[in-house]
């Protein structure tokens, strides 16, 4: 359920990202305005297509479809020229436009195909609904493969690399009072853990605890601080380290509801004196050391198994 919903969103996104030139058919079968309807019939049949752009002196002058041919057949006008039966004032799209333009035009006018021209007006391709679908599927597949490769590489890192003790160290700087960018370190760490294939519940707990710790660094640490995650096959240790001002009374700081956060932080929905308690709940092990004047070191351990 969730997966298919995600992919629908992805293909909607792709409609905007993909350019028409990436999905169009480049080898266009064309006819000229002096081609006879009987010749057109053969062209359509041999190439198994249902229409073709019409050129005169290399310029796009119209489009002719199988419907036009059927009408001509019914009227017994098989020997008239395409020029007489074609649709003039052809609707076209540009090769550098996004696929959404084509999709919109198909939906608006009920067209089955649209000639693609470049900005100089020269015919460079043709696009059908089938081209759009095929293009989207191809792109989805490419992206899926890339994602798979990423996932594979990341999640097998601990199996592929042999040592007596393998560890991955991730270090994030946290700037003081920078609440706008606050949470970036936690966000990146969370993504890294997902990539490494950690269990979703552990990823969520580690993300929340790290975010609380990052928020504390932003609010309280004079010069900001660092978040260091040490990832080992059996556990993750996240440390939030700063150089001051330090916590006066660690025991009191741990009490639910105790907070020294300024008003501007409270207005943003934080600083209610619950962060450390929440970290304690989320982490499998937590250790807080602090000295006034020299700084604070908060360690959180998350067991992976």
């Amino acid at each position, binding site marked *: *359920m969730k997966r298919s*919903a995600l992919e*629908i969103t992805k293909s909607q996104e792709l409609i905007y990202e993909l350019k028409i030139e990436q999905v169009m058919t480049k080898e266009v079968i064309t006819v000229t305005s002096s081609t006879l309807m009987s010749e057109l019939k053969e062209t359509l049949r041999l190439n198994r297509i249902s229409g073709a752009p019409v050129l005169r002196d290399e310029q796009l002058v119209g489009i002719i479809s199988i419907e036009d041919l059927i009408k001509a057949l019914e009227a017994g006008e098989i020997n008239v020229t395409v020029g007489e039966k074609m649709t003039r004032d052809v609707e076209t799209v540009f090769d550098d436009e996004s696929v959404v333009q084509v999709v919109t035009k198909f939906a608006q006018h009920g067209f089955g195909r649209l000639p693609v021209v470049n900005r100089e007006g020269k015919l460079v391709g043709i696009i059908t609904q089938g081209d759009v679908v095929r293009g989207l599927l191809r792109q989805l597949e490419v992206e899926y493969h890339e994602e798979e490769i990423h996932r594979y590489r990341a999640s097998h890192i601990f199996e592929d690399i042999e040592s007596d003790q393998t560890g991955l160290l991730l270090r994030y700087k946290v700037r003081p009072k920078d609440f706008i960018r606050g949470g970036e370190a936690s966000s990146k760490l969370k993504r890294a853990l997902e990539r490494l294939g950690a269990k979703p519940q552990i990823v969520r707990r580690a993300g929340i605890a790290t975010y*609380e710790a990052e928020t504390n660094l932003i609010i309280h640490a004079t010069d900001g601080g660092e978040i260091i995650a040490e990832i080992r096959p059996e556990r993750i240790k996240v440390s939030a380290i700063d150089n001051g001002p330090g916590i006066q009374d660690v025991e009191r700081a741990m009490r639910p509801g105790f907070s020294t956060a300024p008003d501007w932080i409270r207005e*943003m*929905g*934080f600083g*209610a004196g619950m962060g450390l308690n*929440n970290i304690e*709940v989320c982490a499998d092990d937590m250790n807080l050391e602090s000295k006034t004047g020299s700084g604070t070191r908060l360690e959180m351990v998350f067991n992976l198994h």
Partner: protein
Amino acid sequence: MTLEEVLTIIEGKVISSQVDLSCEVRMACGADLMSDVLSFTHSGTILLTGLTNPQVVRTAEMAEITAIVFVRGKLPPPETISLAESKGIPLLASKYTLFETCGRLYGEGLPSCGLFEPVLKRWQKVFESAPDVNAARRVS
């Protein structure tokens, strides 16, 4: 309940782009305190809030909130919307108060995030172990 049903019940509007309204919402949380959201929600929750700063989106990202509903007709600043779009978190708006928006959804059967162990323990310690009514006052 799907996001689409939520939207109908709260008579809301979608305010971020590329929203998949078919996605499933399991429960809801109404809060203006982001610390509460981080502590007392589960993955798959929809958040109803009156706060509109980008940290609401960060909180939602960390807590794996499915979607955010801004109440009282509040609309978030562009930086909140763009962060939400980059994280794929749908943003909705409701003209009703937090209380009424929550009430409408709860009334239609969307459950809350339930009771959490630390909360229960604290509650029991204060109210259920001591028989006399003054216990609460003494402990606090």
